[in-house]
């Protein structure tokens, strides 16, 4: 036996030191990259923000130019989220707590597969299949729910509307959100599930008493991941949407706001001079939006920490 010496500077093993160094290095690299992107966007973007209307292609000053894009970006992402959150929670709960084991495994595998489909494929599906199929439903919505500003119409003849985009985005973000929800649902402590069941809870009531509260922050994280993807999605939106730079709550007409990402993709090739700077500046706006969304989500998750059960 060796005598363990107690020193004021505990000896650290080589492996620990290497790992600590590597992980610190990785963290610094990530922060530096993030800072680099932010600096680039700011330096290149500010001239675009300050440019006068006759120096850029749009012929508008920056705020009126970017306003509708921000609106379109948020609207499309919001539609996607409104559809995807309940569906992903439902599917995930089915897989984790209702489906027989075999079926659950197959569904989990399919969902993971869907997550790997590239967005251009979703774009093709949206324009080649979904848009056409939605023309008739949009007509119905205009006729029966036209009193709501969302469905005021006139309904688009091509179906290439912001609502179609929202649906395509929802389908795109469903797999990742479902996968995250399923993971956290499966981690619900047995202890609390049994507590609920022993009180005479049905399976659905057990989900409400034990599963959802436990999974709350995981659901929010999943939704934020989905939202981030929806906000930044380029190809699918650029392919499906027929955009015309308006601000409108009308979800089914042929005049739709574009989104920041799609607009950059569609305009960048032909842009030059300060127009490029204006596009970069719109990218900076998207960067800020994504950042704010994530901070907001963190705040929501942290607000009821006492009740999170993390230490129970």
């Amino acid at each position, binding site marked *: 036996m060796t005598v363990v010496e107690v020193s004021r500077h505990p000896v650290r093993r080589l492996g620990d030191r290497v790992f600590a160094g590597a992980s610190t290095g990785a963290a610094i690299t990530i922060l530096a990259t993030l800072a680099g992107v932010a600096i680039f966007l700011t330096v290149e973007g500010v001239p675009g923000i300050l440019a006068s209307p006759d120096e850029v292609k749009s012929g508008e000053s920056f705020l009126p130019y970017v306003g509708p894009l921000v609106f379109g970006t948020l609207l499309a992402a919001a539609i996607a989220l409104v559809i995807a959150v309940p569906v992903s929670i439902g599917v995930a709960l089915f897989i984790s707590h209702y489906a027989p084991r075999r079926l659950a495994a197959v569904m989990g595998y399919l969902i993971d597969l869907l997550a790997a489909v590239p967005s251009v494929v979703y774009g093709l599906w949206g324009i080649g299949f979904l848009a056409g199929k939605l023309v008739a439903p949009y007509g119905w919505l205009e006729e029966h729910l036209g009193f709501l500003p969302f469905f005021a119409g006139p309904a688009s003849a091509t179906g290439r509307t912001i609502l179609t985009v929202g649906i395509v985005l929802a389908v795109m973000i469903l797999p990742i959100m479902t996968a995250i929800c399923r993971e956290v649902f499966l981690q619900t402590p047995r*202890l609390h599930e*049994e507590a*609920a*069941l*022993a009180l005479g809870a049905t399976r659905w009531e057990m989900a409400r008493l034990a599963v959802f509260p*436990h999974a709350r922050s995981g659901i929010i994280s999943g939704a934020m991941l989905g939202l981030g993807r929806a906000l930044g999605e380029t190809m699918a939106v650029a392919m499906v949407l027929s955009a015309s730079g308006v601000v409108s709550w009308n979800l089914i007409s042929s005049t739709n706001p574009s989104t920041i990402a799609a607009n950059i993709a569609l305009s960048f090739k032909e842009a030059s001079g300060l127009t490029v700077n204006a596009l970069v500046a719109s990218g900076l706006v998207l960067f800020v939006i994504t950042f704010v969304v994530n901070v907001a989500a963190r705040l929501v998750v942290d607000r*009821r920490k*006492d009740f999170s059960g993390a230490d*129970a």
Partner: protein
Amino acid sequence: MATSIDVSDLNIYYGDFLAVEGVTIPIAARSVTAFIGPSGCGKSTFLRSLNRMHEVVRGARVEGKVLVDGEDLYGDDVDPVDVRRMVGMVFQRPNPFPTMSIYDNVLAGQRLNSKRMKKTDADDAVERALRSAGLWAEVKDRLDRPGSGLSGGQQQRLCIARAISVEPEVLLMDEPCSALDPISTIVIEDLIHELKAQYTIVIVTHNMQQAARVSDTTAFFNLAGVGMPGRLVEHGATEKIFSNPDESATEAYIQGRFG
């Protein structure tokens, strides 16, 4: 309101594994029945078959009859959800819902049963359940705080309050004190004494003194051998089982010669 239970020829399985075999035992209303026996002999398994929590485990099933007030718990038209509302349960490890306040924990079961409660009714129900569980004085000023912030003994009494707030007829307790300190254990034993005026109580314990202190009837379970199913060896009045049991295995176990 209290209820007697009649178990006859109950076999309990996990998949193909027969865990408990051929249990026949009557359990008297408004009394405390203790299950004792070496670990792994199926005390928890049997207890959980009394409120159909056993079948929550994948592949788990039972054969035989469990009559509660003459009605078979395992009848074709019996919903396990209704059974569990009538037969409450307290677990080995305290398990209050961590995201809920103390107040909401107590009401969790009632909110399942009834649609809407008036605020005053809810307040009364919470106070009544917490008083019965001997916890009211300690928590009345922090009902809105999370239940997970309480000590282990307090959490367990909160779980008892939660279980009795739905006014079940039977209360099952699976080693409710095994995770608690001696003081909290005494508090809960006193509580069991008070609760038996209203409820039929079945408690699993590995602590012989505890069985002797709290129960009227004691049932001794044992394993016939390694890999063999658990069996009910004998049951009877607690004084008799502890002073003059019929079976030598019971005597050996009680005197601490094995287990």
